[in-house]
């Protein structure tokens, strides 16, 4: 077998900052599928960027060491050569598209490779990835998960030898989104391609990976597959027809209502209804989980609750302060450092007592030791977690709306967020999830599924998630 990716003594840093990667060596043979896991902020995305050359060319990173792709040294390869050897799908799918309609974008790109037969190639890839029905819809009307699928299709157009997927399951639903990625990887494997996947939700990828590595700043260590053998991850979904609660107050008991939706209907343009007659009564202390497929209307519901979107029909009433963390977590961060964020929240929200000390302790307990750090320099997962923790501090007896708060987090980090949220007994928490993975960790929550625009009670039981949390804690070395 040939080595298609060979990295020798790689060092990487941005500007004059600390080295993000220190002396990493790594190689992958052709036709292998490699899974790389690691804590958020350990340098996975930087490593992926370095492999495609964008860390050096676009992000201005200082890179030392050698990177060989498809038998050639990266510095000696032209852009077209890199594109035909390696393609990467990064975390944020919104920026993959340079034209507003996916079919135009994909055809425009395919024309550079295939000329007049571009359309034929685009349809072939779209068929394989299952995105044919999304091709003619404007990208602004697509959910993050749907865009993720399209970005995978775009990466496959040039038929590259190596496919790098940075958090491919982020925002993808487990109705069929996860399966699409897994099938894509299977198809790539059977076509003789090398696949490198960086992913936190590793349980879905264990069977596909030939090799598993754990990334730390100063090492990339190969893990034995036996470490994952005993994980019981079988889950079962059991929709119920009555309101389902894991504990908590009974529906009939009186509660302090903080948010109310009555017969809310919403749609964009002339398209079909995204929400149909949604009614909800949210009480102080409630933890609500809204689970659903990509494009099912979860984010729309949250935006309506937050006031970003006005429903076409129906009534929304808010009786308490609402804090909203969007799916893109950077939009929540307003200050230059973590410490200033805490100060600002305590000052402007007029949270008295020992708010700053309280906030500082919480943030530190989530692993943010350097409070002077600029959030801009944090990884996606770190910013998501930080935003959630800051919303927790700011909520103060109100309502916290979290759109996919576990993206970029390890199983253990997600568990930490859930534990923290559940301590907030005087606030209502509403969380959207496109994956069932974390539902069993949310004890005492009201679980809903959104399907065909209708919100229905939902229950899900699964035994393996706690094992994954424990394993993540052990292998990542959390204290």
């Amino acid at each position, binding site marked *: 077998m040939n080595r298609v990716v060979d990295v020798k003594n790689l060092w990487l840093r941005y500007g004059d900052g600390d080295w993000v990667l220190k002396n990493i060596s790594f190689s992958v043979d052709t036709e292998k599928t490699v899974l790389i896991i690691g804590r958020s902020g350990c340098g996975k995305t930087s490593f992926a960027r370095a492999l*495609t*050359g*964008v860390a050096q*060319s*676009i*992000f201005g990173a200082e890179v030392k060491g050698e990177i060989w792709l498809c038998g050639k040294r990266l510095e000696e390869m032209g*852009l077209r050569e890199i*594109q035909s050897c390696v*393609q*990467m799908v*990064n975390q*944020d799918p*919104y*920026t*993959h*598209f*340079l*034209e*507003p*309609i996916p079919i*135009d*974008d994909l*055809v*425009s*790109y395919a*024309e*550079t490779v295939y000329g*007049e037969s*571009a359309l034929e190639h685009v349809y072939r890839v779209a068929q394989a990835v299952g995105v044919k029905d999304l091709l*003619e819809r*404007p*990208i*602004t009307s697509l959910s993050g998960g749907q865009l993720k699928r399209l970005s995978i299709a775009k990466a496959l157009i040039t038929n590259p030898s190596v496919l790098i997927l940075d958090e491919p399951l982020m925002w993808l639903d487990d109705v069929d989104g996860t399966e699409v990625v897994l099938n894509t990887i299977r198809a790539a494997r059977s076509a003789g391609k090398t696949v490198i996947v960086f992913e936190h939700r590793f349980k879905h990828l264990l069977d596909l990976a030939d090799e598993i590595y754990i990334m730390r700043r100063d090492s990339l260590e190969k893990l034995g597959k036996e470490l994952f053998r005993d994980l019981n991850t079988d889950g079962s979904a059991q929709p119920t027809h009555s309101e389902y609660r894991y504990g908590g107050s009974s529906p009939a008991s009186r509660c302090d209502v903080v948010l109310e939706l009555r017969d809310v209907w919403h749609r964009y*343009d*002339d398209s079909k209804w995204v929400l149909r007659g949604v009614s909800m009564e949210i009480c102080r202390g409630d933890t609500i989980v809204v689970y659903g497929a990509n494009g099912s209307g979860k984010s729309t519901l949250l*935006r*309506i609750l*937050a*006031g*970003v*979107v*006005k429903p076409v029909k129906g009534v929304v009433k*808010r009786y308490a*302060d*609402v804090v*909203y*963390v*969007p799916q*893109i977590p*950077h*939009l*929540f*961060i*307003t200050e230059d450092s973590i410490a200033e964020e805490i100060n*600002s*929240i305590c000052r*402007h*929200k007029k949270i008295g007592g020992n708010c700053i000390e309280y906030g500082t302790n919480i943030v530190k307990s989530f692993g943010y030791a350097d409070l002077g750090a600029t*959030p801009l320099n944090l990884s996606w997962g770190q910013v998501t977690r930080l935003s959630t923790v800051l919303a927790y501090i*700011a909520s103060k007896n109100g309502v916290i709306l979290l759109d996919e708060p576990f993206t970029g987090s390890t199983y253990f980090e997600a568990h930490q967020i859930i534990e923290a949220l559940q301590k907030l007994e005087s606030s209502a928490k509403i969380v959207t999830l496109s994956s069932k993975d974390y539902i069993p960790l949310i004890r005492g929550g009201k679980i809903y599924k959104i399907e065909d625009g209708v919100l229905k009670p939902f229950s899900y039981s699964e035994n393996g998630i706690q094992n994954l949390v424990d394993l993540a804690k052990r292998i990542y070395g959390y204290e």
Partner: protein
Amino acid sequence: MLGADMCWGWLMSLVRDFSNLFISRRGGASFSLYTKMLLLAVLLVEVTISITLFKESNIIFTVYSIALLFALTFWVGGFKRVLNALKLPLIFVLIGFATMLFSVAMGYAAPSPKTLILSTAKITALFLIIALGFQWISLRELRWVLSKAGLGSIASLTTVVLTLIPAVLNLYSEAYTATLLKYGKRYAYKALKPLIIHSILFSRDVAQAVYWYGLPQIPRVKINRPRRTEVLVVLAIGAIGIYTMFAAP
């Protein structure tokens, strides 16, 4: 608080709707690109002449233009979307109209109500032409036109910019709402920082996409020659416009 929230939600919906103006529809594709461009140019020239030279007249022409533009927008398929998108600019038009009416009521020198209504309607027609242009001519076609005019690199950059405008406007509304809810109305200005930070991250990611995929190329657009009926339609529309502009009140 509820009233302010409702108002805010409504304003954000307007911003989102406005962002949709820059996304073309696939309706009305049976017309040749030449016909579409010529028709839009004819309408644009006629409305501009009417605005500049016939400030206090051209009632029939204005009614004709607006009716024609609504019909075309409906035919293209983006009728509701265009109407939604126009709410935001029309608010400003109406504010201007209301201010002038207020001036008249207060006794200040101001145009007559007839002139006010006419100019508001003509500005609306102008917005409708621009909106129709974005709905009718796809970015691929626009890029092809610009490249044929020797503006290839501008064409590519225009495409990227127009693609990103809706996304940026969506992000703007998200950031503003997140900050407003985080700190309250007094500190909503703080939304500027996440916007700047996200713009930096966003532009780096876009640069990354350009690195991976290259700038949009000059597209292979199949341009049909206008059929005789299309030419007749353009001539008829133009002639009726000129007639109503010069001969009718």
